[in-house]
């Protein structure tokens, strides 16, 4: 018996203190706290955008066209003479909601699917993972085109469609983790203690696989935001004049030589979000990691 198993068993019915512990550890990590603060700040801005945006995001000034940052337009204007800061604020609403909602969908389906397949194993595992293989192979474009046609243009469906694709890799990673953990002594001990399968999965296996899950999640969010931009760029996503950070960057990339600010500012906000997420993710992983906690 190693120290890790002591921890597992002694902590069986003290989930709350585990959470509290994690919070205390997280608060000590300055980078993680910084990331959290920035993310919360962005979310608040996104929520309040309709009231605090400096301009109406649809208002154009064609004669003005694309101009660099000025006192009137802090981050400049796009080719329609629309205020870029306003565009970025409205774009953030869409990017943040697509990123987080789709990732949560992917996370829930992927983790559930992967851990069940990995833990039960055998024929169930084979059937479940072959289904994942099939979904992987279906032509994604056709799938999205069909979704758009069948359900019309609905933002919520776009999130779901993206989430429905992104969970596949998550499921494979989760399954791999669970297969490894399943054979470890502390799980065998839990089985010996007569705990139910779902109990073991939820209380012992998933918490131990939390590291790779969090890392992959922080990778999925930017991936999803860019996927949304790619789909919108091809006409399969959100409709103008609505915009997102990904779309602003995609359009900005086309004119990076002529109007660099149209790329730099949206890029800055996306990058800041990703770094914050990343630091928060690392912090969370360290804070929740039952093993390193005991180190």
């Amino acid at each position, binding site marked *: 018996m190693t120290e890790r198993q002591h921890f597992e068993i002694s902590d069986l019915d003290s989930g709350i203190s585990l959470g509290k512990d994690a919070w205390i550890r997280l608060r000590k990590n300055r980078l993680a706290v910084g990331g959290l603060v920035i993310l919360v700040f962005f979310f608040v801005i996104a929520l309040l955008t309709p009231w605090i945006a400096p301009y109406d995001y649809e208002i154009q000034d064609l004669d003005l066209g694309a101009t660099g940052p000025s006192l009137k337009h802090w981050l400049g204007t796009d080719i329609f003479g629309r205020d870029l800061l306003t565009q970025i604020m409205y774009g953030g609403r869409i990017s943040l909601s697509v990123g987080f909602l789709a990732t949560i969908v992917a996370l829930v389906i992927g983790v559930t699917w992967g851990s069940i397949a990995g833990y039960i194993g055998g024929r169930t595992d084979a059937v479940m993972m072959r289904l994942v*293989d099939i979904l992987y192979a279906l032509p994604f474009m056709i799938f999205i085109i069909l979704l758009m046609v069948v359900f019309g243009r609905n933002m919520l469906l776009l999130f779901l469609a993206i989430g429905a694709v992104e969970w596949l890799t998550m499921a494979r990673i989760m399954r791999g983790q669970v297969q490894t953990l399943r054979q470890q002594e502390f799980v065998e001990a839990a089985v010996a203690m007569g705990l139910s399968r779902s109990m073991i999965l939820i209380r012992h296996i998933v918490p131990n696989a939390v590291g790779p899950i969090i890392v992959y999640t922080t990778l999925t969010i930017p991936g999803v935001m860019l996927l949304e931009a790619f789909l919108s760029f091809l006409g399969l996503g959100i409709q103008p004049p609505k915009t997102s950070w990904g779309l602003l960057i995609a359009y900005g990339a086309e004119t990076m030589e002529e109007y660099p600010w149209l790329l730099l500012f949206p890029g800055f906000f996306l990058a800041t979000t990703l770094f914050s997420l990343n630091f928060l993710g690392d912090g969370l992983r360290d804070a929740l990691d039952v093993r390193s906690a005991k180190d």
Partner: protein
Amino acid sequence: MTRYIIVRILQALPVILAVITATFFLVRMAPGGPFDSEKAVMPEVKAALEARYKLDQPILAQYFSYLSDLREGDFGPSFKYPGRSVNELIAAGMPITAELGLYALIFAVLLGGVTGVIASLRPNSWVDHIPMTLAMIGICVPSFLLGPSLVLLFGVHLDWFPVSGWGDIPGDKVLPSITLGAAYAAYVSRLSRAGMLEVLSQDYIRTARAKGLAEWRVITRHALRGGLLPLVAFMGPAFAGLLSGSFVVETIFQVPGLGRFYVQAAFNRDYTMILGTTIFLSTLIVIFNLLSDVLAAWMNPRIRSDLLDHD
């Protein structure tokens, strides 16, 4: 292990058949047909074209006739490129995309793996922070931005590399490979760091250290296999993803690969081409997922330690 592989290969057949069936019916549900064009085509001409490609037959008859052609390895003629067979188009594009994917993956594994492992050895130091920051940038800079940036810098301004093409002008393979590989390098780097950190806190590593093994031996002989496990699970789909994801890079650099066909076929409603590339891709996915599962089983520290005992 051999039995496991045989079972998996047998499982692959129904998987691919399911993919074919689903794709066959899905593409026909999508609005618009292969012969719709901006200038209205006379109904007589359209009917003649549809008859020519058997699209006027009942859909089930089309399905079974497609399957029977497929048994002989015939993917059928392309609708978009009359006079070309799907087999020919895949044969033309595949080697190029595979080569591009291979270089990109090598770049990704080398750069990502090395930085990830080094970072994991000294967590929260500068060798950790700098590569991880770069990796984060790698993830957040999409290829439609990285590609043009690299081209403008190294192609147009510095004139070190050609701005487009594949195998026509010396050095024209460098920028597309790096562009495609960059995002994956970032993933590889983060996943391998996380995996290594996980393993380095495990008991058998402590045991190995306690036995007085040199640190580099501990890492290369014991830690790497377990530490790279999440990476291996990622690699299977990643390679398949490289092939389908190369669309953007192939478009930016005018690379005549399969990625462009794969995406454009969907937009052209080139039914046979969609099916052909999908079957091809699904076979690859099955193979690579199988390989990565086998590799993962082989690298599993449990199995590995059993093997060590027999040494």
